[in-house]
């Protein structure tokens, strides 16, 4: 199994390299090239209610084993793009590839075993307990009538531990604070045990403590288990500190991509966010607005 996987990934590296050489997009900090876990190719995305495409994107790469942050102003199409990568929105044209295979070829459950997605809004019955919610994360690993087994049990324990929700596992979702319930949902998507994880604004509306907790959990998952992460973040300084790779979007198109240091520039802030600000690396990125808007 592991043998086959490494064989696959070697192939992928080469594939990635040729792609990267062709358009130079997958190059990262140290100059080497990375294979991408998830690739969007010539995507045009729209909603039934919209007349024109919301997102047009020639190519997007989510490099394997790294944390990629999508940044951009409200309405720039970050969530829409993420949805199409997660097979929640089928593109008008173009295709999305997961591990080199078109995602439309995946069976729904098989896809959910490979890629987890936590959307921006989620509701649940208030009387659901955290533990029960986390067990729902095992859905793609069970057949229709199948009961929980030891694998499920262990994955749930691991997810609860990693997300740090052990102390609230028996509490009902309705009685949790926004930050606690977000961690509970993250535990659910962790229990899904996927190699790729997409998170749509997981830190929005959370206080600083919970923001950091969420990001720390994601970082830990990435470092310890090699999970590929793509995350939409609102705070660009936070994104620059946190992510290995940054994708900036503007008006439904990719504006720039690459390591944070190369992407987060005064020019980007002026063009994309319409903010005149100074960017300093000390060594963490700092963004200081030059004057009020």
């Amino acid at each position, binding site marked *: 199994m592991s043998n086959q996987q490494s064989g696959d990934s070697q192939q992928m590296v080469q594939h990635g390299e040729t792609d990267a050489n062709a358009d130079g997009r997958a190059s990262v900090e140290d100059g080497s090239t990375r294979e991408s876990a998830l690739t969007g190719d010539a995507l045009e995305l729209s909603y*039934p209610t919209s007349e024109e495409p919301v997102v047009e994107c020639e190519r997007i790469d989510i490099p394997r084993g790294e944390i990629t942050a999508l940044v951009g102003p409200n309405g720039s199409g970050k969530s829409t793009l993420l949805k199409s990568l*997660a*097979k*929640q929105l089928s593109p008008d044209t173009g295709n999305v590839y997961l591990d080199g295979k078109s995602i439309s070829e995946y069976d*729904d*459950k*098989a*896809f*959910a*075993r490979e890629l*987890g*997605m*936590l*959307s921006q*809004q*989620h*509701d*649940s*019955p*208030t*009387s*659901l307990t955290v533990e*029960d*919610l986390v*067990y*729902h*994360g095992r*859905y*793609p690993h*069970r057949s*229709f*009538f199948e*009961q*929980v*087994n*030891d694998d499920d*049990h*262990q994955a749930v324990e691991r997810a609860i531990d990693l997300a740090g929700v052990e102390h609230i596992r028996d509490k009902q979702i309705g009685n949790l604070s926004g930050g606690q319930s977000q961690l509970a949902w993250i535990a659910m*998507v962790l229990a*899904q045990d996927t190699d790729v994880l997409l998170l749509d604004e997981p830190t929005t509306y959370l206080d600083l403590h919970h923001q950091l907790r969420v990001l720390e959990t994601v970082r830990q998952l990435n470092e310890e288990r090699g999970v590929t992460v793509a995350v939409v973040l609102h705070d660009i300084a936070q994104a620059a500190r946190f992510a290995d790779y940054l994708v900036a979007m503007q008006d439904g198109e990719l504006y720039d991509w690459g390591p944070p240091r190369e992407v987060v520039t005064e020019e980007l802030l002026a063009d994309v966010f319409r903010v005149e600000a100074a960017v300093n690396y000390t060594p963490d990125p700092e963004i200081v607005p030059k004057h009020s808007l």
Partner: protein
Amino acid sequence: MSGTTPTEQSSGSVLNRLFGWIDGSLLSLCLASLVVVVAGGLVQVSFGAFSMTIGEAWRAVFDPAVIFDPQVWQVFLLGGELPELGRQTLIVWNIRLPRVFVAVLVGANLAISGAIFQAVTRNELASPFILGVSSGAGLLILLTLVVFSGLAAYLPLLAALGGMFAFVLVYLIAWKNGTSPVRLVLAGVIVGTVFQSLQTGLFFFVDDIGVVQSAIAWTTGSLTGTDWEQVRMALPWSIIAVGLALGSSRQLNVLLLGEQTARSLGMSIEKVRFALSGVAVLAAAASIAVAGIVGFVGLVVPHLVRNVVGSDYKRLVVGCLFAGPALMVAADVGARLALNPIQLPVGVVTGLVGGPYFLYLMRKQQNIGEV
């Protein structure tokens, strides 16, 4: 020793996941429901045109000539000629008890059907009849009675088929690159309105008051004259529907997490939604075939149960399995005995009891708006 502990522990937790969900509130709900069913059943077998004392009725219920005779059970469940039995035993077992059993089946089916539809449409006002089932069944009942009176013998079957047909029609209307709960409910309202008008129009062509009464009994739901034949008709479908509903509780729970989450967990949401609706319609059709269109049970019971045991569908379905029959049996006591010797359609009583109870729930509970 230390090597075995973790496995023991984890298999203990797996066991805990298998049975840990049965809690005090569910057990007491089931027990209370059982008490109501037994008490209601006892009243039903004791009173009527041929009166007996409660002692006599009990003796007849536990008559060993019936209970321990497989041949008698075979006749009850598969049909045939009954062997010689005592007069009281015959009245209890052949006339009064089957009606209680039918009430139990109808109550369970309607409650489970309503619970499923409330999850599928994510709408707390959903009932077994939300997707046009009642109007389709009603239309075919009227058509059969008024236009195709030669087919009257197949009325139960036709009523159930009418309900299923309307459901499929609703689904087709709602389908446009997939469905959504709102579109399904809207399509249900549209089909319901049209069929309801046709049904009302048909009443104008009826000359015979007997046919009108029969039509009203069918469209409001009645257990008058139900027999072992109705038990035989509904039982197999009820067992299938209940089994499927219990087995699907996890799917229903995942549906409650919202469409997006369900999809990202790998649920093939259209397939699951259609399959679950199918189970709910099967349960509703089984009850329509034997009792007509009994209102309110499928709406009120899931609410009542959810109020007690919470929104977990494993608990909810089991709770409905007990509480539905309790409401139905109790309502039928009222329908049969309140205005003795006139028997009311049981649907009239469930509406009279269910409506105010629903109002009470609404006033009492802050978060009634949530499924």
